[in-house]
């Protein structure tokens, strides 16, 4: 009985997400110039990341644990996870504070759907799909350059990629929520981006305590470092299990925090 209900709920939310996608796409088509400018902007950003590493590798053979081919795979994963995050969550979380302060939350709360889901997923940046294509192409190309990869490696990669996206979502959500509490939106967002940057470099280059931090408290290491390990190194099942568990834990924590926030909201609003 419970299983059937779960399946029903999942189906409903999937259908709803597809409806969000359709609506967002229609809305985005209005701004055709946006498609182009976003692609250009992100291409430059991708170029900057690639550029940095390629230049460094002119002067060394290894960076952290990896050589140039392996680092390229790492970068590909960065691009793909970043693209998914930007498509699915960025716009929503960016607007979260303003829409809550403006009181738009009320209209979400009277809908028979999870308000966290509505707030986090409603607006999809379909304009960024081009970037996902570019990132994926780079990833596939860089994986193809590797001497040996197994299907198991690839499978683990596919499992850990969504973990990366969800970890970024949870972190960003927590930052947005704290910006709301401390009403310091700009500084908090700036801080967020700096921490995010830590995840854009292989975790093996950092000192042990920092490496620990980005795999636990601020798991930006889930963005690319761990998924990259899945494909570049022999499987480390302990680490992968940790990522899975911690991601699930973060999602539960975020959901709990949201419900707590709502209780406060409904006790405080006038």
């Amino acid at each position: 009985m419970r299983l059937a209900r779960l399946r029903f709920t999942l189906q409903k939310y999937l259908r709803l997400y597809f409806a969000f996608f359709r609506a967002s796409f229609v809305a985005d088509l209005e701004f055709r110039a946006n498609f182009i400018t976003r692609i250009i902007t992100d291409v430059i950003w991708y170029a900057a990341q690639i550029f940095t590493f390629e230049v460094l590798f002119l002067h060394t053979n290894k960076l952290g644990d990896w050589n140039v081919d392996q680092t390229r795979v790492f970068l590909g994963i960065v691009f793909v996870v970043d693209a998914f995050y930007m498509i699915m969550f960025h716009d929503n979380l960016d607007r979260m504070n303003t829409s809550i302060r403006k009181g738009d939350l009320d209209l979400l709360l009277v809908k028979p759907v999870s308000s966290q889901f509505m707030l986090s997923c409603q607006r999809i940046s379909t304009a960024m799909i081009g970037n996902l294509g570019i990132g994926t192409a780079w990833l596939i190309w860089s994986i193809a350059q590797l001497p040996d990869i197994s299907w198991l490696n690839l499978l683990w990669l596919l499992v850990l990629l969504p973990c990366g996206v969800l970890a970024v979502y949870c972190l960003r959500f927590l930052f947005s929520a704290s910006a709301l509490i401390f009403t310091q939106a700009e500084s908090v967002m700036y801080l967020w981006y700096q921490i995010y940057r830590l995840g854009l470099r292989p975790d093996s280059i950092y000192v042990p305590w920092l490496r620990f931090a980005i795999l636990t408290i601020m798991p930006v290491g889930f963005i690319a470092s761990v998924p990259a390990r899945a494909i570049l190194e022999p499987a480390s099942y302990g680490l992968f299990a940790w990522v899975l568990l911690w991601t699930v834990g973060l999602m539960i924590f975020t959901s709990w925090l949201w419900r707590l926030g709502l209780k406060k909201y409904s006790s405080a609003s006038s």
Partner: protein
Amino acid sequence: MTKRLEPHIAIETQDLGRSFKTYSKSEGILASLRGFWDRKYEERVALAPTNLRIESGQIIGLVGANGAGKTTFLKLLSGLIHPSSGTAQVLGYSPWERKPEFLSQIALLLGQKNQLWWDLSPMDSFALLTEIYDKDAALSRKRLAMLAEILACGHVLKTQLRRLSLGERMKMEIIGALLHEPKILFLDEPTIGLDIVAQTSIRNFLVEYVKLQGPTVILTSHYMDDIAMLADRLLLISKGQFVYDGTVDSFVAKTEQKQKISFSLAAPLDQDFQINPQIFLKAGEQEFSFSVLGHELPPALAKVAAFPQVHNIRIEEVDFEDVIHSFLEKESRVLSPGHSESP
């Protein structure tokens, strides 16, 4: 916890109340410092404990001054905020538990806010709403066509929301709120800011819709016309307390409508002038403004018109807030907890 309501009662409240703790902030550095560890909290009563029963299909007009508690009451019944005291059952559910089964049967329209997407046509937004409420797409489309026909806005369904006029946008918001056939409508200032044509159009629509579908409606408004045209029952709320619960007609009878006359003279008045036993115009002034009861208007107007060189004569209906104020002055009776009147 859902309580069994009598079948014809849609909404019932028992001592439902809501107050807010605010702390009084004093001026000055010393006071602020003192306030740091010795905060004086004030309790502000947004809604005094209230007992009400609303039958299915009733149209309730909820009026009151700004800050009287109208929106708080609506938010409590729609589950947006938790009460400080008491309970309520809406369609047998406790609103603030926010169960999906409850939420899919109510609709909340907030006059100044949009739920529809700015960059989409209403048509596309409605498709999204159909999905959110898990309704059948074909039935939804039929319903949309029916609603759009009554509201006479079918021709702009495919135009982007941001390109529509304020009145058209409001019509679309109303359709959006009604698309899922809610049993209870909470309408907060649905006609605010609209021109006369749009207001009338929406009022007429609501009358017709209510006849067709028979939902329970709680409508708040600043415009007496909204209430007069639609409401079976009028609830007047002042400072968090319900001070009147009866028909619109008996309310109107209890309050005497005043009219405000204002005008100016070319030269200052050379001596005091009496309009009627209560109203005197002062010598030396040029701009005048006073209010008279409906039946006192013609003689007062005749006296004003008799002035040589009088300009800018204006006659206005007294502000609704003043009507409420004068009603409250006349009637100091308050509906006490445990006692409610139903016509």
